[in-house]
């Protein structure tokens, strides 16, 4: 099939750009390890309250300046509803839900994931800025959806 010379140039340019984009994303994902949040761990949504670590939601120190934060989402709140996080900490966040699908987003950061019944969602974040961060549900979960929040308070010294 004949393709016009200008169109050939246009398509070669377009496909080359596409390859550059995809390589950038690929290198970032597989070489630098920037994968989207995916955790293939499952859980019985009706037994969340008995399943560790979700039986004890909250922040737990696991190393020097390294913490595990366990949260449980349900209509229409997060447990815990307020967390104090030391400045500069690396936090491994695990969230699950006991009922419907929720979102878990901290506006102003890249913390953003879906929380689905039966699955554990995980993400590691660093908190290098002092202040209060809003945690909100960004997937429709029912009539109180827009009331569903928690807060992270990043402070220098946690007592």
């Amino acid at each position: 099939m004949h393709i016009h010379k200008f169109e050939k140039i246009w398509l070669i340019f377009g496909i080359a750009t596409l390859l550059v984009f995809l390589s950038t994303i690929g290198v970032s994902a597989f070489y630098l390890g920037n994968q989207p949040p995916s955790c293939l761990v499952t859980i019985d949504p009706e037994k969340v309250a008995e399943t560790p670590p979700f039986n004890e939601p909250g922040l737990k120190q696991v190393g020097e300046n390294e913490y595990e934060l366990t949260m449980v989402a349900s209509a229409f709140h997060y447990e815990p509803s307020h967390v104090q996080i030391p400045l500069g900490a690396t936090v491994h966040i695990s969230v699950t839900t006991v009922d419907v699908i929720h979102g878990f987003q901290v506006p102003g950061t890249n913390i953003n994931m879906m929380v689905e019944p039966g699955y554990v969602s995980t993400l590691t974040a660093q908190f290098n800025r002092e202040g209060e961060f809003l945690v909100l549900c960004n997937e429709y979960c029912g009539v109180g959806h827009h009331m569903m929040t928690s807060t992270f308070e990043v402070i220098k010294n946690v007592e």
Partner: protein
Amino acid sequence: MWSNKVDRKDGKLAMAHLYVAFIALLLGGLAGLLQVLVRTGEFQLPGNIGYYQILTVHGVLLALVLTTFFIIGFQFAGLSRTAGTLSSGVRKAGWIGFWLMTIGTAITATFILLNEASVLYTFYAPLQAHPGFYIGLTLVVVGSWVSGFGMFTHYSKWKKTNKGKVTPLLSFMVIINMVMWLVATLGVAAAMLVQFLPWSLGFVDTIDVLVSRTLFWYFGHPLVYFWLLPAYMVWYVIIPKIIGGKIFSDALARLSFILFLLFSIPVGFHHQLTEPGIDPTWKFIQVALTFMVVIPSLMTAFSLFATFELYGRSKGATGLFGWFKKLPWGDARFFAPFVGMLFFIPAGAGGLVNASHQLNQVVHNTIWVTGHFHLTLATSVILTFFGIAYWLIPHLTGRVMTKAMNKLAIVQTIVWSVGMFFMSSAMHAAGLLGAPRRSSFSTYGDAPQALEWIPYQMFQAIGGSILFLGIILILIIVINLSFFAPKGETDFPIGETAEQAEKTPAIFENWKLWIGVTIALILFAYTVPFIDMIQNAPPGSKGFKFW
């Protein structure tokens, strides 16, 4: 001349679809207006109407009803015009499809209005609507299949009576779009029949949430191409005729449609990038496949502008961009779709952001996404559909569009663009600041971050109100063209291919090949993840009704 006219009986079938589409536009648009007003924080819904109830109305009526009815009506008219009058059997299939879809819509709407189904148009499990909601939606899909099979029958009859000839380009494109629709809706039909209906009727206790979401998005992304391809049909086939030019290349137009068929379905994971149950490598594979639609999109952009330039130069335009001035800016049939094309440039770029493996995390479920599809569907596609209405309705009703109506249509396009500019830019900006989509007004306990979003929500309301004015204008035009415009003949414009274009290769109509490749790609993209999902499935979820 007579052969260029759509048969009256076929015209009635098409018009019936268009009426439902425009009624859906009015009601769905009203629901949209109420939403932007609520989100200013200054307005509350009267009575017991819930925000999420009108959000469901808005999504179902505009994204599912308006689009499907308009597209099927337009496609029947296009087939009748380019592949000959429909046989009575095909027309009957069209009417059966129409009534199934209409009854389905009425059933679904009833349960939404009764507040039994505030689950939004994506109806994510385990929120559980009344079974009537799912039954209604299933009827809409089944109705569209009956119409689709009618279209396939008409096409194969044309092939039999015109052995060895190349199918009319518009008919070919219609068939591609319906093949894609059929393959895509199999996913949502499976979810309905195997998961949602037995579960909502109480035959089974639990539902596998991840499987239902995967089946939904297997359908949900091609759905957006099902909306977009009719706009592309107009841009490729009809706009050249309206401006008085020629189609740049018949073969390339067909190739781009085939590429859309291949790459629109095996890509649903890019809507599921931030969810837990899918392996990141498979997400990446579908991201790569998603990006492939860049190629036919770039081909389309080239073809369109080549057509414009060739036309302008044939009218004596000089210089690099002199041809731009020669385009018929005063003709609403050209102006509305052209503005739609311009909006598609930022819309497409935003789409690449959404589909990017990690970048998605910044914007996922923020109101940025809402801003994005109000540029693609609610501007590019809808302005093109309005552009279709300006000649299709008078053609089918035996009337003509007056100069006054044409002027009103130009004003309508401008009103729409201004409204959408305000609303969509505010949504994109607020989304980057983290404002969530699909949420009623909230200051989240006066959180400083949430207070930052309120000015943008004001802008959304201004944009949304201007858009509602645009809906009133288009309805005035549509009612005029349907019932009151002067009697006369209006052309159904179909472009011809430029003389210098090459002959169309026969391989483009090798359906076994293209459908085979489509299925192979789908199997490649979905088989392993699907086995994974089922083998490693968590216990299912029972239903919840939280509204």
